[in-house]
């Protein structure tokens, strides 16, 4: 269980147990972390790398696994000019240890305790904390209706594609809407453009419903999505956002 009051968030070692390549640039890393205190869907973890001369680099990554899952999963996009992500996606092997600290963050979280509709809007690897929420939702008994609008560059870049299909086909309460911004594959039935007003209006619930909204992705994507929701009448306080820039890991 998560303690509610201040507590020390300590560094610990996780052991990489499994690597799942999600897309050409993105892999999920599953860790055995025996001292992991548990987390809420949407939280993140700090990762610290140490070179043999003591040089260190730290980054934060969203947690992809559900609180119920046995292993702690991170889904990491390899940024070619990055410092940490090329190590995590490329160098780190099953059996290697990684320093972790978390869970971090108490705001961009979904506890799954309420039946209020859940609206998730993700761009690229911004889907990762949203996936933790959907995986968590698949474990809870009373499921809030949920919709995910997920923007990817190309079909090959769609993270968790098969799992999202599986989750939504097995569950009438979950609908997944894809849009591709740089490709129009033959036979594709999803959207093929950047997120816009017409798309958001087709996907989201009317604003009179109380809806929990989580938006995560690159800055420009989040700005666009959050602004569209507010323009439609969504209460800005109900729209929780996480942004990441072009730089990072």
């Amino acid at each position: 269980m998560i303690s509610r009051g201040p507590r020390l968030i300590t560094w610990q070692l996780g052991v990489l147990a499994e690597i799942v390549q999600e897309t050409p640039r993105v892999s999920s890393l599953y860790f055995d972390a025996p001292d992991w205190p548990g987390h809420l869907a949407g939280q993140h973890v700090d990762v610290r790398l140490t070179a043999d001369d003591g040089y260190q680099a730290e980054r934060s990554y969203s947690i992809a696994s559900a609180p119920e899952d046995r292993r702690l999963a991170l889904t990491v996009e390899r940024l070619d000019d990055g410092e940490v992500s090329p190590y995590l996606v490329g160098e780190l092997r099953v059996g290697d240890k990684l320093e972790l600290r978390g869970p971090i963050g108490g705001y961009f979280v979904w506890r799954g305790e309420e039946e209020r509709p859940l609206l998730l809007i993700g761009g690229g690897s911004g889907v990762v904390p949203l996936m933790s929420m959907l995986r968590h939702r698949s474990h809870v008994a009373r499921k809030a209706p949920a919709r995910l609008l997920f923007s990817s560059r190309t079909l090959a870049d769609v993270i968790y594609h098969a799992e999202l299909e599986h989750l939504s086909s097995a569950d009438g309460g979950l609908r997944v809407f894809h849009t591709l911004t740089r490709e129009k594959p033959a036979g594709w039935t999803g959207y093929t453009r950047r997120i816009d007003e017409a798309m958001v209006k087709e996907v989201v619930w009317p604003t009179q419903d109380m809806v929990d909204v989580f938006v995560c992705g690159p800055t420009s994507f989040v700005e666009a999505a959050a602004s569209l929701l507010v323009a439609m009448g969504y209460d800005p306080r109900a729209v929780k956002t996480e942004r990441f820039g072009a730089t990072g890991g």
Partner: protein
Amino acid sequence: MRDTHPLMGFVSRGFRGKRRDTASSARVPPGQYVVTDFPVLSAGPTPRVNLDQWTFSIEGEIDEPKRWTWKEFRALAAETVTKDIHCVTKWSKLDTTWKGVSVDTLMEGVETAAEFTTVFSDAGYTTNIPLDDITGNKAWVVYEFDGQPLHPEHGGPVRFLVPHLYFWKSAKWVRGIRLQNEEHPGFWESNGYNMYGDPWREQRYWGD
């Protein structure tokens, strides 16, 4: 305190890292890396601020609360400062240039026994900072970045700037300072982040 001892000596197999040059490394706190762009981090949608209705206030434990309209605020003596900034999400940006009003200027003539403040913003954001950390040439209320009006994504028209603490303390869309006798945790401070937030002591989270 950082809890490093249990893992002393741990080495990440195969990690070399990208070394920064030593000249700038002395300016980069532990666990941070330098960026050249300007990442945006906010907990919600970017508010659109109407300057006709904008005011900046100093209130709370103060005999006569102070309030400036946008026009009055812009008539105050301004300073241009160049500072390094450090975000708790690990990026640091060196030599950022801002223009705005020193909190010392705003606090001129204010008598208060308060030791703490809550800096508050549009959209309900708050952050708590000891009064001693925003006076004495340590904090500004800024409206220009790099010679340009501050962009809404970065907190425009007006944000707080307290560069010696992690950047979440530099509240975007700032509207005032509440002087308080006791310390009340603000938005991120209630959500797992450190009450003080000194980057050089890596005070990121509760308990650090």
